[in-house]
């Protein structure tokens, strides 16, 4: 009989063994994920600092390793907050270490992305990572590796330089095995879509072939930064409750509920605890594990709480989103573009906001071809994989009846959906697509329908306009003939003047061009 050995593994060891779940399953996917993780950390850092991001990305091919795969040097640099020197080793050398474990919207959540990228680079190339950062003072430069078994950074060198230019930000440079030619398209799409929802960012990318891509900043305006908020009683799990009890100074359950959760006043707390069957005067520290579970369950069922506070969310805003889409799709005034932001809503105690847009027209046909193209974003991150498993695909292809809006399956159309939340309902750790949470699904549906109503007017106006133009061209064709031959018929030298008649017809064309007015509700939406 074989002996069974029991041992625990460190988080970095776990992710080392299961790197595919974090998006590092093969060299081409890894290349894309590496860029994405580092760029997202940079965008987060700039937004926290409150400056329009300037992000510089460079990939350099170092040596070939096999058919299509090579060792690349990847450098991502930003003008964000910078990392305080004492945190640098652990932020970049320890999995599940980070600054984003609070309840406000950010791209990063797990304290995993950047570090696992470094980890992947290390195991494929055995080369250290170099992190250079400044929070405004001296520039600190670390060279380090990760001790995978113990989930600990190994510092190889640490240098401090004077910061004469007053630089602030972070640069991460690492080596990794990747496949650029296979990931090129995704990387480009990712950057383009990122630029679409971050029109205030300037992104420069130099690829291994020396090509320069620039996604230009079109505005300095940034969405207001999200605020950190207390958890909502329904959005917190048992573990959250346990941790809060551990740190609380409150002596009663009533006090505990009011102090540590959002939107709970003394009256609500009293009522809720009564319903949960827990004495409001009880000391939270004396809560038994069974009582704790009971409390969490009761919170889920209680409907006297206020809706979760959405001020921790940071939607892009209709104006910025419009600018971003317009610039990245190169839309003209002829094309249709409408953006809506829905009012905040909640699912399972988490606040969320849906923003959506539809673009339609000749430019899209020319650049992307016909058919409905979907761009999905979660907390301003583009989602590029598993499109047909996600909720947006379901809404676009299964729920909305586009015929109602005069849209056909081959209409040149782009659908943009952005969901922002303190907890995006991701289906996987790879953050690839959103599940069809009923509340989220409904909000997306309503957002798209309300835009589609505008689109319908636009399309019918297009049709009318085309018809009026066609009419005019017919009159322009035949009226001169009628004038010419009727004049000849009665021996006149000059045909009668048809201009006044043509003018009357072209007046109708300009009428068809007049702006949209009311947008009626439609059958389908009842």
């Amino acid at each position: 009989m074989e002996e069974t050995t029991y041992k625990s593994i460190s988080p970095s060891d776990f992710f080392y063994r299961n790197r595919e779940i974090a998006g590092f399953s093969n060299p081409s996917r890894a290349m894309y994920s590496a860029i994405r993780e580092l760029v997202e950390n940079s965008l987060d850092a700039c937004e926290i600092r409150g400056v329009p991001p300037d992000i510089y990305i460079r990939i350099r091919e170092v040596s070939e390793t096999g058919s299509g795969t090579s060792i690349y040097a990847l450098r991502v640099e930003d003008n964000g907050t910078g990392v305080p020197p004492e945190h640098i080793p652990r932020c970049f050398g320890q999995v599940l270490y980070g600054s984003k474990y609070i309840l406000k919207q950010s791209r990063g959540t797990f304290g995993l992305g950047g570090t696992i990228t470094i980890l992947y680079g290390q195991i494929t190339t055995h080369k250290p990572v170099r992190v250079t950062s400044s929070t405004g003072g001296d520039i600190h430069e670390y060279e380090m590796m990760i001790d995978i078994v113990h989930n600990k950074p190994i510092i190889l060198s640490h240098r401090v330089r004077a910061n004469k230019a007053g630089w602030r930000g972070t640069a991460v440079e690492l080596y990794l095995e990747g496949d650029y030619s296979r990931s090129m398209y995704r990387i480009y799409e990712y950057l383009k879509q990122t630029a679409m929802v971050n029109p205030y960012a300037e992104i420069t990318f130099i690829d291994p072939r020396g090509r320069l891509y620039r996604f230009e900043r079109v505005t300095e305006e940034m969405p207001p930064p999200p605020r950190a908020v207390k958890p909502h009683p329904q959005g917190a799990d048992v573990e959250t409750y346990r941790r809060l009890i551990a740190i609380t100074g409150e002596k009663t359950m009533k006090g505990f509920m009011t102090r540590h959760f959002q939107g709970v006043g003394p009256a609500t707390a009293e009522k809720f605890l009564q319903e949960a069957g827990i004495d409001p005067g009880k000391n939270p520290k004396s809560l038994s594990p069974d009582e704790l579970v009971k409390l969490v369950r009761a919170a889920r069922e209680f409907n006297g709480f206020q809706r979760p506070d959405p001020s921790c969310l940071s939607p892009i805003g209709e104006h910025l989103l419009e600018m971003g889409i317009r610039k990245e799709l190169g839309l003209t005034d002829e094309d249709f573009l409408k953006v809506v932001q829905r009012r905040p809503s909640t699912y399972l105690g988490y606040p969320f906001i849906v923003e959506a847009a539809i673009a339609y027209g000749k430019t899209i046909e020319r650049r992307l071809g016909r058919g409905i193209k979907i761009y999905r974003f979660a907390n301003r991150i583009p989602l590029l994989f598993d499109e047909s498993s996600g909720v947006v695909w379901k809404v676009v292809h299964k729920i909305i009846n586009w015929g109602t809006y005069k849209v056909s399956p081959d209409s040149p159309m782009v659908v943009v959906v952005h969901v922002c939340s303190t907890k995006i309902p991701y289906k996987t750790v790879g953050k690839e697509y959103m599940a069809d949470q009923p509340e989220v699904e409904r909000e997306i549906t309503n957002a798209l329908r309300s835009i589609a109503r505008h689109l319908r007017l636009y399309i019918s106006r297009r049709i009318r306009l085309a018809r009026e133009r066609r009419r005019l061209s017919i009159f322009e064709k035949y009226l001169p003939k009628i004038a010419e031959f009727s004049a000849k018929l009665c021996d006149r030298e000059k045909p009668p003047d048809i201009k006044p008649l043509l003018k009357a017809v072209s007046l109708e064309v300009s009428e068809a061009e007049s702006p949209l007015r009311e947008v009626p509700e439609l059958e389908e939406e009842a």
Partner: protein
Amino acid sequence: MRRRLKLAEKRRAAVELALKQLGKIICEQIENREFPWIMLQSRSTDNIVYDPELRQYVLGDRVIRRHSRNIRHIRPFAQLIWTAWFARELLKLRKTSTLREVYYSARGLRDIEFKSQDESDEIITDLETALNMPRESFNIYPEERSAIFGDLTIEYTVPGYEGKRLNLTEHPDGMMIGPALSTAEIVETSADKVLVIEKGAMFTRLIEEKAYKRFNAILIHTAGQAPRATRTLIKRLNEEHGLPVYLFTDGDPWGMHIAMVIISGSANAAHLRGLATPDAKWIGVWATDIIRYKLPTENLTDKDVKRLKELKRDPRYQGELWQREIDTFLEIGQKAELEAFSRYGLTYIVDRYLPDKLEEAGA
């Protein structure tokens, strides 16, 4: 002769004036900042009625407006004006044109060009309706030609032949009824009747047998449905020269109808008068003749039966003779074509059948 020429000249001038007037109306409408339009009698089937007094089909009171403001009308409108101009040119130049030539003349004319001859024929019919004049009056003729033979002297009015006379016995094949003959003046005739024959073979045999002499008749061959020029000529011979007209067709529904169109006009020329010869008489071949003369026959086809049933309801066929013959056809289920007589030899027709039938008809 002067007088006759003058008459033809006057007629031509009247048509030209009507055309010119049309052009003037259109020009003035445009100058008044109005989209040009004209009024036409509607030719849709529900506006075609049988006028028992005139004994022909006529258009009812409904009129339609052909309006260039209407996107579906503007193209035919432009084509109509072009066709009017084309007709006026024909008259000016004293030329004629066939329907087909009109279609070809518009070829390559941008925005006027007809898609098919059906389209140009339709526009010409519009022009007839608008002007209330047959297309022959503005020198447009169909391709089909029928023929005439007999002691009849005519005088041409066409350019180059003005005043020239011709006797229609001159050519043993008969003379084609074309534009020149249609516009010719009738000078004199010794005949006392007109015998209209549906089939060419029979027409030729009757000339060969000198039947025209024996019956003292002018022979006209319709070649199927009689073209309008032929119908006009028949009418003129009947009304202006007092010659009774006898119609001799196949003994089947189609032959019957050839006779009927000569007598009462056709639905698709209801916008025109002066084509019908209400006093013409159909002398055969009747269904009852098949029995009486034991004519060789063929069975009626389904199509024949269907046609007979249609004709039975037609207002033109309500007379006793027609109803009786239709019923008899249906009863015996047989029909007889003119060629069938050859079984008896032609003399049988000339000596027995035709004299009998003419006599019965009161000739």
